[in-house]
């Protein structure tokens, strides 16, 4: 029996395979495909203080080896999450991280207080959504503002505090260091890249344009994500959760090789809804067949 657990400070997972925010709903939908309780953790869809209806129609478009989304953080709001979704997650024994999206400092602090009061074990601060006008992206692009935000949330929240970083900045190391110095327990990287997807067609002398401006994700972004994790590893002491384009066990190993302690599977959940459970099985089998007893052993070998 191999030990897949991850224990790095407050980041404690039974295995390193998580699913990324916005790609796993509130998990009910995946009961048709996998045993969700087997996952290291599910990161919930972003939760805001009040319900959000999201952006208008035409929210997704496919691009080469990926997609663009502009959902706009549509969610039920924290009150409804706590009353309706939380009991379901708990009754099914699902490990989860709550992804929090505020529109200002006060809202993040308020969300943190609610999480503390409800004994939520881990939260991920969404300071990097590219699809909403005010709020969260500003926090993710300025080291000083982010530092203040993390400090304020830290003061109210004692669980595992993860900060999700945007790649859409000049020097991501500065932002990550600010999070670390302000009390974050881990960072997750990367959120989506800003992009524009377009489909043009020409009929009867007229062009029709289908277009979505938003967050670029999927297999095409993996090299960017690996590059970022590699850079962060040089400067950070807190654990890094790697994500961006992961669609196979091989991808997971690549993220471990550059220093990620755990990973999140995102867009691949759309293409292959049982991919996360498959990767857990493949990783277990790989370790068994090759004599690795713990995940740390595997990670150590990848570094050499």
């Amino acid at each position, binding site marked *: 029996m191999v030990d897949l657990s991850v224990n790095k400070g407050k980041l404690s997972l039974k295995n390193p395979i998580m699913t990324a925010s*916005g*790609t*796993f*709903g509130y998990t009910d*939908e*995946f*009961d*048709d*495909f996998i045993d969700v309780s087997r996952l290291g953790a599910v990161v919930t*869809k972003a939760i805001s203080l009040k319900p959000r*209806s*999201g952006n208008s*129609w*035409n*929210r*997704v*478009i*496919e691009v080469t*080896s*990926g*997609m663009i*989304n502009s*959902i706009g953080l*549509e969610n039920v709001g924290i009150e409804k999450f706590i009353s309706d979704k939380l009991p379901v997650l708990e009754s099914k024994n699902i490990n989860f991280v709550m992804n929090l999206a505020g529109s200002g400092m006060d809202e993040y602090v308020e969300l943190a207080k609610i999480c503390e009061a409800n004994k939520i074990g881990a939260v991920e601060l969404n300071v990097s959504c590219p699809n909403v006008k005010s709020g969260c992206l500003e926090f993710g692009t300025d080291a000083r503002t982010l530092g203040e935000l993390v400090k304020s949330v830290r003061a109210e929240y004692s669980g595992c505090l993860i900060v999700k970083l945007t790649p859409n900045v000049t020097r991501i190391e500065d932002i990550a260091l600010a999070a670390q110095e302000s009390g974050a327990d881990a960072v997750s990287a990367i959120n989506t890249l800003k992009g524009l997807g377009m*489909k043009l067609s020409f009929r009867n002398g007229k062009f029709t344009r*289908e277009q979505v401006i938003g967050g670029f994700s*999927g*297999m095409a972004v993996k090299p960017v994500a690996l590059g970022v994790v590699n850079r962060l590893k040089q400067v950070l002491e807190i654990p890094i959760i790697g994500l961006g384009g992961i669609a196979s066990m091989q991808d997971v190993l690549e993220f471990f090789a550059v220093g990620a302690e755990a990973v999140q599977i995102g*867009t691949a*959940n*759309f*293409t*292959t*809804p*049982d991919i996360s459970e498959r990767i857990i099985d493949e990783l277990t089998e790989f370790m068994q067949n090759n004599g690795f007893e713990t995940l740390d052993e595997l990670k150590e070998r990848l570094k050499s």
Partner: protein
Amino acid sequence: MTIEKHKKMNKGEVTLIERVANDMFLIKIKVAEDFVSHAGQFVSILCDNHTMRRPFSIMNFENQEMSVLFKKKGDGTAYIASLNIGDTVDFIGPNGNGFSVGQCIWDEKTLLVGAGVGVAPVFYLKKVLGDKARLIAGFQNANEIPSCLQSEIDFITTDDGSFGEKGSIIAYFEEQISAYKPERICVCGPHIVLKLVAETAKKHGIPCEVAMEKTMACSIGVCRGCVVTLNRNGKIDNASVCKDGPVFLGEEVVW
């Protein structure tokens, strides 16, 4: 309209694939024995290395064979069109909720309206309802009419008059209502056709079910990529086409 839950990742074998109109194809897929579907439900087919599966209404299901009618529009559908008999199709489904009338014993006279490739799910319903339904459909021209369905459609229009009546199906819709006197209307086609049919049905006080289409990323209700706005008893809310639909009551959709 709740469908029994079960594992939805499926694989099937292509038993037939043929071009049935200009750029339109019929594919038949042999599916697992526990597969059950209703008219109006859809499947999302994995297209080689594409990130997003392509959603298609089920056109028929009999003898463990599922039929899908699709139009070759881009890379994804070109991939499906390139499949051969014996190839494996990886699909998720059946997804969503179908037409309510396809899922119970129904005595209402139902007028079924299809436009273009949207004829597929209403054809499925026609197979279920038999004599209790009348199927009318509009196409751009004679070359766009799927050969496999032509004799099954009770009334056909083409924009250029190359087959059947000349003009849009919308132009003949009220006339069809007066002649057939339906107690329910079910429609699938482009957004504008759905909107106009729903509005006309409402004017005549006839309940109308619309099968909608949107670009989908996940097709299982997770990503919120395919939402439409509904007004249910004055409460405005988003609904996902893939999970809450694709069939909605026309009067509830905020067009």
